């Protein structure tokens, strides 16, 4: 039972990550390989604040979101000057730089040793300590993220994003400040990703840089794409499939050593397969066509 709750919590965390990335990739058509960096910033922000300042959970959550959001806006700004392919590389570069900082600035982030002993959330006097408690919290945050994303996407703002996705020159020619929209989307995507980071940090109570690598970014991208980019439920479906499916493999009795590899090969293979046969994923509305 605890195991099931654990899986559901992970699905929740990755749903938040994929819903937030979907705003960028699925609705605006910007492939960002930096998402794990924002996830990490959220996690480290809450960890450092809780450990250094003992500030309350909700305050940490808000500050982590803001910090990540600001960083996201900063990444979005160069999109004005750097075109598509190169911009993807720029996000890759940003991801690696953030990882380097998390891994090497030992005095601040604990380096490869990470940060242990992250306190559990206490909200209005209630301590979240059980699996059920965390699951409830995660579900609430998931619902919030889903609602937030839905609002954005269904609004005229969202319409501009979809226009940018297909033809930003057209959007620009009708008075839309494309660069401004991109910065805002990055800000929102990053801020929401930080929520997942906060939950991860307080749930596991220990974080280290290895959870926030390029491969993690690619995993989140895979979730969005396989589930279905450009739709509201796609990312959630993707998270369910890509988090739960590998767990099922455990029951087949796969040796632990190869379990991690098989898990990766699973989503890597699915990525190739979907690109070949169904780029819009299971339920997506955007197939990355020209």
């Amino acid at each position, binding site marked *: 039972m605890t195991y099931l709750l654990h899986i559901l919590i992970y699905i929740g965390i990755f749903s938040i990550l994929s819903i937030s990335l979907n705003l960028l990739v699925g609705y605006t058509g910007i492939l960002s390989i930096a998402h794990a960096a924002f996830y990490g910033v959220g996690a480290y922000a809450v960890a450092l604040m809780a450990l250094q300042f003992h500030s309350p959970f909700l305050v940490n959550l808000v500050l982590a979101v803001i910090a990540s959001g600001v960083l996201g806006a900063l990444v979005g700004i160069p999109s004005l*000057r750097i*075109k598509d392919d*190169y911009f993807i590389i720029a996000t890759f570069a940003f991801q*690696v*730089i953030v990882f380097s900082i998390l891994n090497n600035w030992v005095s601040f982030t604990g380096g490869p040793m990470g940060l242990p002993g992250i306190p559990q959330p206490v909200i209005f006097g209630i301590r979240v300590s059980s699996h059920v408690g965390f699951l409830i919290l995660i579900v609430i945050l998931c619902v919030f993220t889903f609602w937030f994303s839905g609002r954005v996407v269904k609004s005229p703002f969202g319409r501009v994003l979809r226009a940018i996705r297909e033809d930003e*020159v057209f959007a620009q020619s009708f008075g839309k400040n494309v660069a401004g929209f991109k910065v805002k989307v990055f800000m929102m995507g990053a801020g929401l990703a930080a929520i997942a980071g906060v939950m991860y940090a307080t749930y596991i109570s220990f974080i280290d840089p290895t959870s926030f690598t390029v491969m993690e970014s690619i995993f989140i991208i895979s979730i969005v794409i396989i589930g279905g980019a450009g739709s509201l439920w796609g990312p959630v479906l993707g998270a369910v499939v890509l988090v739960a499916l590998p767990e099922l493999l455990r029951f087949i009795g796969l040796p632990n050593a190869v379990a991690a590899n098989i898990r990766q090969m699973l989503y*890597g293979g699915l990525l190739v397969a979907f*690109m070949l046969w169904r*780029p819009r994923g299971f339920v997506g509305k955007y197939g*990355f066509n020209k």
Partner: protein
Amino acid sequence: MINQLLLNALFAGCIYILIAVSFSLIYHITRFFHFAHAVVFTSGAYFTYLFHKLLGLPVCIAIPIAIGLAALLGCGMEVSVYKPLRKKNASPMVLLLASLGLYIVLQNTISMVFGDDTKSIRSGVVKEGLLVFGARITPIQIVIICTSIVLVVLVALWLKKSKMGKAMRAVANDAELAEISGIDSHNVILWTFAIGSGLAGVAGILVALDVDMTPTMGMNVLMMGVVAVIIGGVGSIPGVALGALLLGLAQHLGVWKISSQWQDAIAFIILFVFLLVRPQGFLGRKVKKVSV
């Protein structure tokens, strides 16, 4: 001290050149980001390990086989994934994503088959380096530098003089026009992958001969190559070579002044700056942001 720095930088640059030139070749002609190039690089080393250490063949036979297999691997990806996608008019992003998927599948295959631990194809004791101009360099490192330079020069000459080389340049410049002029672009692309992948395989072997191998070593080296291409200029071999050397220099200067753990970050900060300030690199052509 400064001589050692320069020598280290030259050495790093030579590694980057091979991967950068091979990647640039493929990118320039196929116009998408072939991420999986990273695992082709790694496969060169592991194929050598397979044939030399596991099957016992002498190094001088194992290496050519490995290079050939690496080239085949690259061609295999083109034939089984990229070509079908291009036929469907897939956007560069789709190709990039497929390439990512390929990388993940293949890198994990290597991990599963060979294990994640460091493997070696080096033989013998690590000798102290020879003294050259007051700096230390091992014989293998000299071999690597020479091999890189020779290969890059050969590729550059081949591109300029040979029939296929000219066809490749034509396709790189304007694929439609080349097709109309009777050039079989499918064939050209296949050759591009063969040569590019072969070069990557060589690079992988050379690196392994210097510092051993792990299944994940490819991605990092590839990104360094990409940085070299961007600062040197896409589509220009001398530019890419220059970029690779400059990158090596910048990193080692950084290592000297700061510490080696920040090597990657330095490379990527340089990349970021270049993308912002001079995306066409030193010698590349101007990159238009959007054509109206």
